[in-house]
């Protein structure tokens, strides 16, 4: 089946089997391998992408469901030249070790702070508790997200 959607701002057309989930479509068909698969049953959050502004598990959504949607993956967060403030904060706080969970953490946190730039520590922990990380113990990730809030507040007050 043919699906049309926007990926990181660029319109794409893909031909997929109806049973293919969105993560496989992004990774295998479109070669955007930043979106990772840690469980393929909705439990780890590594595959989180942003579909029309909402953080979504790409392993629990079929590719054919995103017809007409706009999707942002980790590859679409930063430019070639610079990391985003959220990514910079992750680096500064050493919020990643192996880096496998990182794309899902970034997309989840980005979606959260875009909606709620004033989210407090408890709120951030609650939202991120759907994303598993085995390396960091989460504390530096939460610190990084707290630290990045300022940038989201500014971009809000246009």
């Amino acid at each position, binding site marked *: 089946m043919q699906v049309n959607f926007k990926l990181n701002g660029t319109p794409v057309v893909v031909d997929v*089997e109806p049973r293919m989930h969105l993560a496989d479509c992004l990774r295998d068909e479109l070669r955007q391998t930043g979106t990772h698969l*840690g469980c393929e049953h909705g439990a780890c959050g*590594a595959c989180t992408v942003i579909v029309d502004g909402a953080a979504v598990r790409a392993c629990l959504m079929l590719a054919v469901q995103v017809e007409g949607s706009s999707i942002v993956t980790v590859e679409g967060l930063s430019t070639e030249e610079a990391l985003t403030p959220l*990514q910079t904060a992750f*680096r500064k706080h050493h919020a990643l070790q192996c*880096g496998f969970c990182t794309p899902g953490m970034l997309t989840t946190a980005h979606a959260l702070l875009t909606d709620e730039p004033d989210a407090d520590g408890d709120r951030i922990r609650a939202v991120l508790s759907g994303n*598993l990380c085995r*390396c960091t*113990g989460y504390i530096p990730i939460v610190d990084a997200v707290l630290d990045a809030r300022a940038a989201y507040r500014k971009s809000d007050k246009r």
Partner: protein
Amino acid sequence: MIGTNRYIGSPVERIEDLRFLRGRGEFVGDLKSQGMLHAAILRSPIAHGRIRGLDSAAARAIPGVRDVIAAAEIGAVPTIPLRLLPLPGTERFLQPVIATGRLRYVGEPIAVVLADSAALAEDGVGALILDLEELPPVADRRASGRHEILLFEESGTNLAMTFTGVLGDAEAAFRDAPYVRRECFEVQRHTALPMEPRGLLAEWDSTQQRMTVLGAAKVPFFNRDTLAAMLGLAPASVDLIENDVGGGFGARGEFYPEDFLIPFAARHVGRPVRWLEDRREHLTAMNHARQADCEVEIACRRDGTILGMRGEIFVDLGAYVRTNGLIQPRTLAQCFSGPYRVPNLHMVVRALLTNKTPSGTYRGPGRYEASFFCERLIELAAVDLGLDSAEMRRRNLIGAAEMPYKLARLEPGGAAVDTECDSGDYGEVLERCLAEFAWEEKRTLQGRLIDGRYHGIAVACFIEGAGAGPKEAARLELEPDGTVAVYVGSAAVGQGLETVMAQVASDTLGMPIDLVRVFHGSTPYLNEGYGAFASRSTVLGGSAVYEGAKSLLEKIRGAAAARLGGPPDDIELVDGRARTRDGRSLSFADLAADGLRVDAMFQNNNKLTYTYGSAVAHVAVDLGTGQVEVLDFLVVEDVGRIVNPLTLHGQAIGGVVQGLGGAFMENLVYDANGQLLTGTLADYLIPTASDFPRIRAIALENHPSPSNPLGVKGAGEGPIIPVGGLMANAVGNALASFGAMPNQLPLSPARVWRMGAEAPMENLGKNARAEPVSDAAGPGRSQIRR
């Protein structure tokens, strides 16, 4: 010695991060190869049985399914050798790379299906028809120890190995001791669970007769040699390539059946083959760890001085002895007493085979379990003898003046008969930890009921034997663009190796860090290498890089002197240029034309470095729900020398949280038929962002290691070690008025709730401080001879 740079010791932001943050890491699942087929594996659905037949006709008939490989296609099926402790007798219990008739655990590979897509390969697996004969399973180590049902009939036993740790004369010590206590403890089966499941991509070049395998980790050189032998190739014809690796923690990168099956399949069909493990597969295929129980005793003087420890420990090893499967039982026998002076010790460890997934190492292997057993014993003795928990430990820690301190002698030991604590002041770290935590103030909370929850505190001490030898290789090359390429035999498993090695190289060379490029973990770079286990990369790999960088400096000086004239000693190296006294200079890029390159090897003769530390915690227990909240957790360790405080701190916090997972939630549960009941991440629970927000870690560098030029000690495994014992003791202290005995992990809500619910009626709701239980009538089997 070290140049003017100050990268070592600075929180250098990681080089690796730039690609990971942009989604540009290259994990094995991100790789594709022209004409690649996808593999899926049929695994045993039963714990114990025989394969009577395998019908692959329907699978082969599916369009897109290209081949099915089972034992028959392989011919002589190799077994997987032990990488560590290949002791006589173990050869009877090695795992064949594919089931050859007998099935010994749920998840054992039976056949590989190759197809045009992963989905089609899975369709193929679903279409395979198995004819099985079920045998009664050996469901646990007790059944195993009866030896009525045997996993390997020919051997006549389920006992894979017995280790004994001996120091002094335990029998005499117990005979004369004024106080002894005996208890049973148990640690559950759990697993490393890296977030990236395993994967391999194998490419066979039939014209060159070369095999290339991507997705290697941890010990690529050992695995290359193993694979080459199994395939009948020279090691030089096999390359193992390490890509980005999504976590290892001891389990990833060992030689598993798939490490043979996928390369074999690629050669068999003459096309590249990729296999990516799914999570359910992972939970039955990758090494399990930790499962052990014991009956152990402690003997003390009345003042708390430990006279001896002895007992028997049983390890539930699973169905086969895997590459590093004996490390856990070995460590339990040899390192039971951790950092404590236990002059008389006799510990017998029996590793028994069961019809479960085989076990191997997981961060702090054996030490986590030993610490739980030993710290529980010490705590119970402290309570019985009316001593403060901290004072009890203070009295029994190995003293600075006693260094080096020999640990128990191991039988049988192979190469590792003796080991000794190398250096340091264990008491210093304990005092620092207690002071930061305000132990004396918090002691008043012990056992108190505040706002509906019972509070408890505990302290534990640990050592981390790390940096296992024998050696590590590095090569440094001056490149035509003036950069230095550093090749190390160490492997990266997500711990920040590139950055740490670059810090060491650039400080030693006196070059900016962005002019140093690090390559690691793949066999084509070097002739030999040893890899990433036992927290050894910084210790051995770092030292090899340091030695290599020093030699490279000499070579650069020599080459510059030859070209510019004058003695090499007069050449100054600054900012990537070699300069004579009179100011003539050449850039490193100019000198690169001379082919400047050094090979270095750092050897430590198998001498371990011992990082040591203490940890304290404060918990609140809600007996209504069985929930335990960790209100404060502090770990202090002395790592000799800190290369990167940022990555070191990350290792400490991450390790503690993994340890808390093991203490409270993680559990691989099997039913009586040997079926794994926790086969998804919805059933096998690991900590999430909201579980343990309050962990603190402090690293000290007061006592550098005497055994390497950097003074570093292995780090990264220490902070996980004390967590189980610490949590059990904190919960036990909180619920002392209920007579709670948290002697089994995990401290799940149900188990903790029962400690309140099943306490004798007269204790319920009693807001009492822990009273010393000072006679044999107390819980457990203690006795004080008066």
